């Protein structure tokens, strides 16, 4: 069941969670709702930061930092760069036909209701969450896991990035034969 946070007796962690969750959802929503792409991008950055906040909350500091670097740093810059490049502003976008918007809202409501209903219906997790006490998320451990057990996927990810790189180049490189 959804635990309505009891703010009176809430611990600091709980309050932080709620605030972060609120910010995350709000900015995510605003990202979509905002009509100016630049605004959207800024909201998205805030959203990413709040997610990083969640990571911090969960004590995954390394991941949080990487997240900020990758998303807020790299990806968002890419977005902004593109937006600037295309010189977009909000006037260009016209409202979608009502039927499409209605469809979007319907499917949004449907999917969220269904997913939430399923999780609510499912057996709640009872009992204490285990805590082994072992270190499992420090940089050291992550590094070991990533470069020992997950060495192959790690290397394979490089292929992924290589493909993305070749692909992006392919799609934007001018050919010699082209006029």
């Amino acid at each position, binding site marked *: 069941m959804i635990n309505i946070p009891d703010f009176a007796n809430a611990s600091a962690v709980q309050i932080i969670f709620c605030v972060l969750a609120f910010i995350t959802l709000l900015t995510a929503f605003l990202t979509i709702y905002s009509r100016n792409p630049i605004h959207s991008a800024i909201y998205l950055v805030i959203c990413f930061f709040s997610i990083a906040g969640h990571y911090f909350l969960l004590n995954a500091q390394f991941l949080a930092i990487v997240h900020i670097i990758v998303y807020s740093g790299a990806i968002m810059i890419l977005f902004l760069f593109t937006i600037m490049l295309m010189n977009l502003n909000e006037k260009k976008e016209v409202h979608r036909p009502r039927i499409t918007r209605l469809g979007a809202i319907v499917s949004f409501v449907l999917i969220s209701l269904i997913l939430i209903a*399923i*999780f609510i*219906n*499912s*057996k709640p*997790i009872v009992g204490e969450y285990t805590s082994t006490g072992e270190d499992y998320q420090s940089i050291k451990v992550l590094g070991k896991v990533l470069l*020992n*057990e*997950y*060495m*192959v*996927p790690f290397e*394979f*990810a490089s*292929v*992924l990035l*290589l*493909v*993305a790189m*070749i*692909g*992006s*180049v*392919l*799609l934007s*490189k001018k*050919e*010699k*034969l*082209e006029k």
Partner: protein
Amino acid sequence: MNTLIAIIGLGVLCLLLEIFNLTKAIVPLTIVGLLAVLGLTISEFNSTESYYNDMIVVSKFSTAFSSLFIVLTIFLVSLSHNFYEKHQSKISDYIAIKIFLLSGAVAMVSFGNLAMFFLGIEILSIALYVLAASDRLNLKSNEAGMKYFLMGSFASGIILFGICMIYGAMGSFNVSDIAAMSQSAELPIWFPIGIVLLTIGMLFKVAAVPFHFWAPDVYEGSPTITTALMSTLVKVVAMASLYKLLSVMNADISESFKIVVVVISMASMTVGNIMALRQVNVKRMLAFSGVSHAGFMLMTLLSLSTSAGSLLYYASAYALSGIAAFSVIIYVCKNRDNEDIVNFHGLGKNNPLLAAILTGSLLSMAGIPIFAGFFAKLVLFSDTIESGYLVLVIVAVVNSIISVGYYFKLILAMYTKEPNEERKATPFVIYAVAVVAIVLNIALGLFPSTVLDLLV
């Protein structure tokens, strides 16, 4: 594992060759390299091993499918040279992307860890987005790339969500661990949700109804060779990995899930075939035909434990006839701005051999004996009846009948309409690929046991 490394090495080699200005050598070298890889893979056939903490698990299933993928890639690469005649400067990129795509495909059938699977499917997808949009001055190609990208990323999100739920339930990405744990009674509901989301993501990739909408548009818009790749290699890869995912992670899927599969399978066949009837564009028609074939292949999911051989056979039959068909389409539609049936008028007079090959491949897809497509359907029907879904088989049969309608539309166009232009020279490569593919198809039809019994 060796296969994977070799393929990636080959991809890098392609890139290097361009640096050394050896563009001419790329295609032949790649083909030779792929043949070597094929040999390597086949030599590993009977050795079941796992590598690097179960990241890659080589089994009969994986080697058999990997070999099929490699064979298909050889065909596709062979066709590339001709197709990219005017883009010689980029050919290394194209070939390299295809090789990397192959590596993703191989990873998708030989994964032992969901991370490998995820990365494999992403490599495959991203490579495909690029290839679909690769004719970048062509608006259709752009649109195809964009549509595929948007929907594909969406599906990726779903797949990722599914993996996440599985991880939440099991605490591991290792499929053998997951399989072991899936036998225990107390499972959080996250696991089945994860499986279902994963399956839906994969259904998108195989273009099953109602997740098929992208397929016709993307097939039509993409450069023909990419369409060939999508409709043969990628479809087969997606299907094989879906099969593998479901069979590896939990041995028996629930009855209600089977019902879902049955419904989707029926819907795919029916929608695919009916929609294909009125198509004018051949690629689009084959896209819908592919949707219906996806429906057929989904039937294997109903008898997971026994139907690996059937799937392999169906996949081979379908993909080989697809290759043959597309090589003819590439020939016919070269230098045309569309792939309408009009272009095929009179092919029977202009180029009887290619017309015969296209006819053969269409007949194979329609499931006419002695082509492999017939046995493919037969074993599927047999398996499905055995598992008790007679109704599904009847729907499948009705669909086979409908499918004849559009396959024959093309055949009719070739043989009864007057040609609208002079015949042009046919490159040797196209002949070779088409002939070899159709001969392989017929050989499979004559000796089905060779493939059917591989995965027993």
